[in-house]
């Protein structure tokens, strides 16, 4: 019998900091980090929704706003959002490499190469 969970997509929880407005991701120790590489990857949507519910407590505490799940994949070990909008949100902007999430070691090219 197949293990259906093997076919599940992977997710990370994302939100924006209230103070800075910047994109942040939920980490394994239940804090928020700027780089997607620090995010905890959740197997299957159900698991993701549980984590999202937990993270939304931080919305009530005014730490973050607008938390939601983003589907990701692993590319050469790195966590990458599947959709271009989320890739740019996590890693961009693509037109200002100096302002992009280079601190996390991503190149601008990686943002849009799919």
């Amino acid at each position: 019998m197949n293990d259906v969970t093997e076919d599940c997509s992977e997710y990370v929880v994302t939100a924006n900091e209230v103070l800075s407005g910047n994109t942040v991701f939920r980490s394994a120790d239940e804090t928020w980090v700027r780089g997607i590489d620090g995010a905890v990857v959740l197997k299957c949507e159900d698991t993701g929704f549980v984590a999202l519910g937990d993270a939304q407590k931080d919305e009530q505490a005014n730490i973050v706003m607008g938390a939601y799940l983003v589907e990701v994949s692993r590319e050469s070990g790195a966590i990458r959002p599947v959709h271009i909008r989320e890739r740019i949100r996590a890693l961009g902007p693509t037109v200002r490499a100096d302002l992009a999430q280079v601190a996390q070691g991503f190149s601008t090219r990686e943002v849009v190469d799919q």
Partner: protein
Amino acid sequence: MNVHVSPEPNMYRYDEFDRSFVDARVAQFRDQVARRLDGTITEDEFKPMRLMNGLYHQLHAYMLRVAVPYGTMSSRQLNVLADIADKYDRGYGHWTTRQNIQYNWIKLEDTADILDRLAGVEMHAIQTSGNCIRNTTTDAYAGAAADELADPRPVCELIRQWSSLHPEFTYLPRKFKIAVTGSPNDRAAVRVHDIGLRMHLNEQGERGWEVLVGGGQGRTPMVAVTVRDWLAEADLLPYLTAVMRVYNLIGRRDNKYKARIKILVHEMGAEAFSAAVEKEFADAQMETVEVDARELARISSYFAAPAWETLAAFVPEIEEKKLADREFRQWLAANTAAHKVPGYTIVNASFKPAGGIPGDATSGQMRAVAALADKYSFGEVRVTHAQNLTLPHVRTSDLIEVWGELNSQGLAEANIGLIGDIISCPGLDYCALATARSIPVAQEISTRFADIKRQHDVGPLKLNISGCINACGHHHVGHIGILGVDKKGKEFYQITLGGSSAENASIGKILGPGFGADEIAGAVETVVDTYLNVREQGEEFLQTYRHLGAAPFKEALYASH
């Protein structure tokens, strides 16, 4: 406490009411931010408050849109915009297609301080967002253009005063944009605004206004219809009030995509809409006409012409330089415009370098233009709706120096009105609503056409790019328009041809199936090459398209597919 410093050029200056109004809004917003941060109010409650103060949340951060009333500002104000870019943002700002500036990396906790800094030089971010009457826009050459009938900015300021805090018009069905032109050559895109006003003179030389209603872009682009050929200036505010009342009363609020006045005009029919406005106008016969005339006279006094000198129109050194230096000649041809006073010239600073981000300005460039304005243009600067800056009153004899100084800042690309002068929204690189990126497309096209001689050979050509159907990049009215869409997670780009925001306004038509991100710049090049092959002597791109239609362009782009 604000230290108020009035802008020095001949432009509107705050009275006590303006000053206390703007200061009160800063204090109010400071309190709202504090309550948001301490959890007294939620994001849902806070959002309409921040939007009323120009603060959006975009893809990466908060974005603050600051109003530049009708695109006019002083060098002192521009210097403050540069200071804000350095202190509170990341060293740059972005000129918008409605003559404003926006900052992309603002922190919530800084916003009240920024608004306070702006208030100190009579600026704010009110009416740059939300379902209100937005910042009125006008011709960037107002008060300077050789072809204008009169300076339209006093009327713009009158509309600003009338619309700010107007209790009837604070919660409209949707946002509402007004544009005004005092010239028969429309550089303010009045036909694609909710209300467009065109100045006319009657046989007695009296000023009156043609009122156009129901234009707009977005997902349902429309060209405005004329509801009044001639409106006496004294009747302007009562008539605008009548238009707004009809819209406010009958405009749809059940569907945001059908809530703009253009839908109302379309659904009622221009004749019925016009009749409803005329009835409201006649019934109400607002009592403020005389007051408005006095107020307009007071406002107009602020816009008195600068102390122009009596100068010779012909400057031999300039003519000699034109003959000797092709680059200067190209810059002069594209980036300057005729001034109403002999010996003066309107100069545009191009924020469209080949391969650059259209409309982005570093703080250094802002300060450089401010210094040029002080030295050469009576301290005045304009923001154009094409995302450039204008020095409206430069002595023709100073043009060589101004050209050199703009060149040293990377602001002398000789491409105004040419294919390199691309209007582009921020697109998916910054905008939360966008479905595709626009800036990289603009960069690739401007790189392909980096050869200025080639651009001049092509001639006047407006290329506009939007990253979604909301059309902030004005693609519907580009001679060539590009609309970015998301197709199954990939960026695709539709081409439209034949749009125009000028006095002969038209909405561009989709040419055919879209192109991938790696194909779109090549497709634009094919369109331009086709035009060069089929144009008749002296014909501009738009004329060729209107003359021949889409067929030759379709043939060139799709025949081999």
